[in-house]
């Protein structure tokens, strides 16, 4: 294995981990407010297809990213209406949203399958351009990659160092108590879903407009669920999510590296590395109170009328 291939794993981890990290951050905000969004896969797909379609039509990737973000927030608002206003079961609503997303995204993206777009431009760091192109292209990132770690820090700061974050976490722990102390759980949960949806939209935009520059039906291929797993992996902490997302996508990149190094281990087995990691983390931390979920996660807030 050469230096290039080792750096390559890191580069791949960053490239494909970005969409995972944005999505995970979005889900952390949702879950901190007490809402499990199992429809993430559908939200991502609708965001990815609408952003890709707009990029293909207008030839402006930034406009595409904007539409992706808004689509993500809108999809989450549908979930919000179901589980907050209509007080529906969160798991059932999330699944319904997901299947709705499968169909809607296929419909939106139908005429743009195989379309050629100019993806989000890569911005090279000063100094890198002196390296051979093979190396410099490893770390030639687009804007969304540069912004992802700051985004994680911002989410962490919002959740743990602002009044809004305190209220949001309070609602996630116990909505009645939060209400008694003068918070409006309904409004806070809508806000959480909206902000969460914006972040999921960014993740989806990175997938279709920046990284793959392509739309195919069901292109997320389970990344929405990996994000749900990453939320648990990172114990609902945005900073740990950075490590989680890099570890997950790094494991995929490492698997591909082993394959292409001619190491004769079944690639099927190597493909399970990310999931084995998740299971190990779940075994290690299990249900210990320190690492457990927000207390009213998944519970319907009945309100006080």
């Amino acid at each position, binding site marked *: 294995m050469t230096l290039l291939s080792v750096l390559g794993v890191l580069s791949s981890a960053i*490239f494909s981990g970005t969409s995972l990290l944005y999505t995970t951050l979005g889900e952390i905000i949702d879950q901190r407010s007490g809402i*499990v969004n199992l429809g993430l896969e559908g939200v991502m797909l609708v965001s990815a297809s609408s952003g890709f379609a707009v990029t293909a039509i207008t030839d402006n990737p930034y406009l595409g990213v904007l539409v992706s973000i808004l689509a993500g927030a809108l999809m989450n608002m549908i979930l919000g209406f179901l589980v907050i206003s209509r007080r529906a079961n969160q798991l059932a609503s999330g699944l319904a949203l997901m299947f709705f997303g499968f169909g809607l995204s296929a419909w939106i993206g139908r005429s743009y399958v195989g379309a050629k777009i100019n993806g989000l431009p890569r911005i090279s760091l000063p100094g890198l351009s002196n390296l051979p192109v093979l190396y410099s292209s490893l770390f030639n990132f687009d804007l969304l990659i540069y912004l992802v770690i700051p985004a994680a820090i911002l989410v962490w700061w919002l959740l743990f160092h602002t009044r809004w974050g305190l209220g949001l976490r309070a609602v996630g722990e116990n909505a009645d108590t939060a209400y008694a102390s003068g918070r409006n759980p309904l409004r806070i949960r809508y806000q959480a879903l909206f902000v969460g949806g914006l972040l999921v939209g960014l993740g989806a935009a990175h997938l279709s407009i920046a990284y793959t520059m392509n739309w195919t039906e069901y292109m997320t*291929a*389970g990344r929405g669920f990996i994000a749900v797993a990453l939320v648990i992996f990172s114990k609902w902490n945005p900073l740990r999510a950075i490590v989680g997302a890099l570890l997950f996508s790094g494991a995929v990149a490492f698997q591909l590296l082993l394959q292409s190094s001619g190491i004769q281990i079944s690639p099927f087995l190597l493909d399970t590395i990310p999931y084995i990691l998740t299971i190990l983390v779940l075994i290690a931390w299990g249900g210990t109170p320190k690492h457990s979920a927000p207390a009213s996660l998944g519970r319907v807030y009945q309100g006080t009328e």
Partner: protein
Amino acid sequence: MKSKFFQSMLAITVISLLLLTACAKTETPTEAPTEPTSPPPTEEEACLIIGALHGGPINDAGYNQAMHESVMAIKENIPCVEIIEAENVPEEAGATTTMENMIQQGAGMIIATAFNHQYPALELSQKYPDVIFEHAGGWEMGENFANFFGEPPDAWYIMGVAAGKMTETNKLGFVAAFPLGWTLTFANAFHLGAASVNPDVETTVTFTFSWGDSAKEADATNSLINQGVDVITMHVDSPTTIISTAESRAVYSIGFQSLHAQEFAPEYWISGTGYTLGDTLTWLASTVIDGTWEPIFLRCSLFDGCMAMAPFGPRVPQEVQDEVLAVSADIENGTIVVFAGPILDQDGNVVVAEGEVLTDDLMNSVDWFVEGIIGSPK
């Protein structure tokens, strides 16, 4: 705590179910065959109604688009033909109802282009003896059921020659979906072609285990490039992500399935091959119309016009172009036989003995890589 436990259990069950269904791809109800795009033609108008169905979207710049364009060529060549087309029909059950609907609408000929639609079509052919069924790439035959296809191995060998000539690092990369017999055969033919002009060349094959996971295709392409690979080719549904990724890293690419792939690599394109079955399908349809259709196991090559080579990219020097075309001519006149023995596998075992040739029916059950390929064929 208890309810949380149940919730987690439910979530886990649902996730695993979804991942399973995800592998099978979701079927979208686009272009339901019950709603014909054109008004139902009357018998006097159409000399033949053809029902064509595809497994994926017909604008994928890949296999489905190539098949769609081949079917549409029938209509261009024989204007009195009506075509009812359905895309995105991944499952066998959906294929059966789609084909039955087409027959209800008067289809006298069914063209099924997806690999897994062979047996649904074969079953229906027994139920509707008056309808002619043609399947792309299958092997079954019947009274009113036959199949047709191009012969990709020759084309892959020629592309291998181009890759072997163009590489500077002597490392070629092949991104593939699954280790299936035909995919391994394509990779083997590609490598044999490359090795015939460049004995130092290695071909690394990486599998994504999905026909359409774009992000993983990008990961795999990057991973190969980071190993020093400077020519990338692929066998997946739609080559667009792999070719765009190679282009963005200034690495050569070679396309497959549809000639449209070239659009995605304006600068680093070497060449590519695609299916161009329009004339063959036109001929088949004309025999159905005049009543002379017979079930034949139809395979036709690059040299019969069933496949075509894309134009060379701007960076391919004239002498490489000449050499590639010379090899193509040698295959056409029989001087070069792609899978002529002796052929050794990765471990040095003889898989095709001296004086023998790997036959078509064995190509789909190949489970070895030739010497010089890096990767696991399982």
